């Protein structure tokens, strides 16, 4: 932790950033915290979020950056969080000139649990790089199901949804002010379970945007395997458009651009 704290201390005391978004133990809970030059001594208590107590820091940075457009902020990022920053830059939600990543490498245990293909940030200020996980067995397992069985599985899961919107609210990549999941003409209101298409609509929106942090799935009180759905959505975006979600070099999002040429063809009936 010393290396990380030293970096943060320098950034703050030299005035390179107006604040550092990280974690502090409060009442024995690790909580997101904005460290500032005014309270430099707090940096001695800065920690890395334990694997199972992560928060969407990227999401917390968006309103901060909005409120202090001139200020730069440092932020603790794991591999997923940094992919999130890259997408948020693309979508005009954050300015890369105003963000300094403080990077964390995840443990092997965490990477295995996440099936994470990139479990470290581009700078590592804490932790050791572990083995990335190239393939998602969870996705592969669903892909082996016959279509009818897959349908029953997913429908059964979707039916458990209590429409708390927790998946959306925790998601660092959900920044829209108006959410189509709440559009009265497009999504039925006042009934449970919600429309069976609820999670599919969300999956469409997350394709090429989800950075696979897994917070939605951990938040979902209904235990819906949301992550499997979004992992697949991203895999499709990779297959169809050769777009690597969250990569700094992937170019513009396939959904943002109409494209210079149409490379796909219609499927035969």
């Amino acid at each position, binding site marked *: 932790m010393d290396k990380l704290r030293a970096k943060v201390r320098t950034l703050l005391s030299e005035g390179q950033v107006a604040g550092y978004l990280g974690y502090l133990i409060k009442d024995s809970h690790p909580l997101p915290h904005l460290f500032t030059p005014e309270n430099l001594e707090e940096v001695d208590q800065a920690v890395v979020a334990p694997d199972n107590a992560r928060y969407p820091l990227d999401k917390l940075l968006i309103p901060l950056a909005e409120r202090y457009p001139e200020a730069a902020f440092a932020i603790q990022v794991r591999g997923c969080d940094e992919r999130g920053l890259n997408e948020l830059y693309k979508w005009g939600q954050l300015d890369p000139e105003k963000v300094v990543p403080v990077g964390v490498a995840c443990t092997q245990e965490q990477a295995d649990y996440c099936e994470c293909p990139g479990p470290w940030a581009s700078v590592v200020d804490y932790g050791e790089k572990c083995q990335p996980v190239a393939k998602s067995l969870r996705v592969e397992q669903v892909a082996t199901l016959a279509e009818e069985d897959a349908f029953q599985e997913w429908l059964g899961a979707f039916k458990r949804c209590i429409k708390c919107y927790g998946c959306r609210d925790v998601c660092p990549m959900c920044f829209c002010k108006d959410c189509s999941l709440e559009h009265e003409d497009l999504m039925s209101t006042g009934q449970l379970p919600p429309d069976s*298409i609820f999670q599919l609509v969300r999956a469409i929106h997350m394709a090429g945007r989800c950075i696979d942090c897994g917070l939605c799935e951990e938040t979902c009180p209904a235990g819906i395997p949301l992550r499997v759905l979004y992992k697949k959505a991203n895999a499709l975006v990779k297959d169809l458009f050769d777009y690597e979600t969250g990569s700094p070099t992937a170019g513009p999002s396939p959904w943002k651009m109409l494209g210079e040429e149409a490379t796909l063809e219609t499927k035969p*009936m």
Partner: protein
Amino acid sequence: MSDQEFEPKILGFFCNWCTYAGADLAGVSRLQYPSNIRVIRVMCSGTVSPHHVLKAFQKGADGVLIGGCHIGDCHYLRGNYMTIKRVRFLQDLLKFTGFEPGRLHLEWISAAEGPKFAQTVRDFTEKIRKMGPARLKSARAA
């Protein structure tokens, strides 16, 4: 309901400039095609959101047919580049979740292709008739 009695409900999203005009041409040419299709005219096929398609299925559509100008002919230049991306993505996502991707079809039909329009609607209606009622609809009714 036996297969014989099943009349599929099909929703068409057709762009104003090509496919809708193609449908008009089919009409004035008195070409026959099944009346199972209900049409929503949109300015460009690129304005059809995947959400609209899913909503149609949610509301009980057995099939959704999207029609737009051929690539290169879109009246908004590249609107249909977006259409093809969305449709191909959605078809694959529907496949993964077992939501019957074959119930969504995209066809490029120009204003001059009246016969192609009629044939496409005939073929698609027959295909959906053979598939039977949508899984989602049956599951919700049950």
